[in-house]
């Protein structure tokens, strides 16, 4: 029987699989890097205590002051509103409508990529936070007191964000067979529903509280922002060492679920086109033979495989944590579990870059080309004279893409190891024990990185 071809939303182009020889080299370098890290590790923590370098007070006032907050908030709200408008009113062609490229490429990929360098860039532009704060400000002005909020259950932590992250990717990638990953209208409706939910949660628990723990995009982009070199504290802009702020990210319960969900969903999206393509097809056909509709079969199958990816990634990490427990002097399982969560952020980022950077480079040409001039894709508007521009696929050769993919994974792996080694020295001041504990994290990371390389090498198998 034939099955529904899993069409791609935006780009009808895929990367070529990484060739076997490059896969082998990548994996070998990973192992060499790993063992060097073990042998040559430093003996007292380097990232845990770091010095903030406050930037000039004048600069902070300009960039963080109320006028700047209002301007950034307005930009965020305008862009969100415009994306929803384009989705509702514009063309149904996914690649011709501003909404899909803006939401799923420019924001969904752009914020992680750039926040990882510069620090959390989403927070100032977060449209829901801006609306929530404006409403809160209005409430204070009228009622003369701060709005009352429910106490957020401490143990719930970032779990709502972790589940939300799975839901967002599920909607985009799984439900996307005819759903929001391909249908600008559905994406706009989903965005509106998410906005309502977010504003309700902000009203219930407070704007900042919800952004820190529950709001999917704040938590997700903020996680990558912890790797970056700029931050804000008490109204003062500061420069910090790269990676340093990540060390305090996972103190909130459920954080580890967020980073694992990130790795798992990226894996699933990559594997669905390659390593898992045949199993998915077979199981979907089996469901269809049992009398389930075609679309339902595919969605059910992909949901199952996506959850399997989550389970696999979680089990690998938890096994590593369990292993570390066997080293004398180890803290509790729960403490280790959250204590090493931040060491996976570089790996999650590397997965994102490896899987999506070519899509990002190509699709941003559309974003700042024809989508800017003709956002609704009507073919009748040409705001900036670029409505007839195209995407130049020659800007990245297959070789460039391969080297970027493999290098990113290897570098992400090395950074993850550095962070883990550093954290181990906090828990085990005795250098030998710290190193012994790191055999386990090393195994976890080698597994993730080689799995990532494997996914790339069988892409579109």
């Amino acid at each position, binding site marked *: 029987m034939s099955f529904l*071809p899993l069409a791609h939303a935006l780009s009808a182009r895929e990367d070529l699989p990484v060739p076997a*020889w490059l896969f082998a080299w990548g994996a*070998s370098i990973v192992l060499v890097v790993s063992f060097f890290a073990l042998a040559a590790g430093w003996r007292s923590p380097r990232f845990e205590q770091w010095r903030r370098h406050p930037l000039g007070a004048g600069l902070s006032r300009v960039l963080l002051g109320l006028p700047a907050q209002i301007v950034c908030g307005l930009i965020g709200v305008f862009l969100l509103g415009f994306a929803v408008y384009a989705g509702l009113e514009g063309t149904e062609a996914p690649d011709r409508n501003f909404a899909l490229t803006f939401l799923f490429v420019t924001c969904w990929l752009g914020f992680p990529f750039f926040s990882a360098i510069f620090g959390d860039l989403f927070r100032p532009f977060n449209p829901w936070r801006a609306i929530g704060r404006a409403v809160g400000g209005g409430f204070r002005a009228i009622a003369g007191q701060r709005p009352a909020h429910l106490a957020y259950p401490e143990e719930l932590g970032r779990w709502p964000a972790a589940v939300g992250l799975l839901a967002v990717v599920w909607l985009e990638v799984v439900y996307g067979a005819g759903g929001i990953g391909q249908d600008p209208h559905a994406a706009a409706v989903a965005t509106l529903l998410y906005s309502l939910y977010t504003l309700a949660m902000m009203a219930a628990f407070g704007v900042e509280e919800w952004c820190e723990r529950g709001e999917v995009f704040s938590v997700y982009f903020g996680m990558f922002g912890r790797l970056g070199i700029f931050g804000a504290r008490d109204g003062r802009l500061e420069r910090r060492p790269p990676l340093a702020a990540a060390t305090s990210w996972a103190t909130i319960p459920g954080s580890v679920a967020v980073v694992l969900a990130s790795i798992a969903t990226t894996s699933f999206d990559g594997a669905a086109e390659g390593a898992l393509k045949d199993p998915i097809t077979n199981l979907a056909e089996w469901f269809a033979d049992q009398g389930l509709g075609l679309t339902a079969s595919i969605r059910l199958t992909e949901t199952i495989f996506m959850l399997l990816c989550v389970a696999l990634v979680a089990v690998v990490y938890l096994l590593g944590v369990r292993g570390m427990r066997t080293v004398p002097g180890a803290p509790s399982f729960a403490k280790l579990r959250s204590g090493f969560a931040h060491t996976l952020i570089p790996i999650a980022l590397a997965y994102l870059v490896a899987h999506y950077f070519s899509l990002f480079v190509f699709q941003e040409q559309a974003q700042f080309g024809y989508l800017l001039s003709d956002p609704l894709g009507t073919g009748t508007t040409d705001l900036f004279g670029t409505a007839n521009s195209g995407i130049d696929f020659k800007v990245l050769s297959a070789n460039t893409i391969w080297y970027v993919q493999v290098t990113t994974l290897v570098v992400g792996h090395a950074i993850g190891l550095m962070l883990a080694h550093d954290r181990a020295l906090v828990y085990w001041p005795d250098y030998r024990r710290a190193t012994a504990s790191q055999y386990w994290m090393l195994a976890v990371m080698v597994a993730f990185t080689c799995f990532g390389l494997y996914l790339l090498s069988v892409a579109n198998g």
Partner: protein
Amino acid sequence: MRDAKKLMLLTGLVLVTAAALTACGSSGSNTSTGGDKPAAGEKASGGGEPTASADDVPTIVVREGEPVGGVQKLEYSAGEEVRFRVSSDAAEEIHLHGYDIAKDVPAGGTVEFAFPAELEGIYEAELEGLGVQIAEIQVNP
């Protein structure tokens, strides 16, 4: 002294694993490409219409809005000429993404695509009206 020994042991382990990986990697790729091709051929012949016509230009047959034998995979090297035909029982617009070439095929007719393979990557060809993928054109460097 113990450290030096350990380090040597580790280095040895790394080298062995690296060698093993390299070996596995290359043999694995052979079997996978070897395994892929018959599967694609099987699909095509199982679907009824063969993919290659007399003059060796692959033809994608579209019936009732679906490619016969599933999505056809065509592989080329950069710089070669990509050449394939599409025949369809209904009038359709065939669109090859990336290269952005669109051609109409009349009902019961055939249309030929021929162009230099200059963009590396995997690109989809689809029935533009129905949004159904019929082929993927893979261009290797």
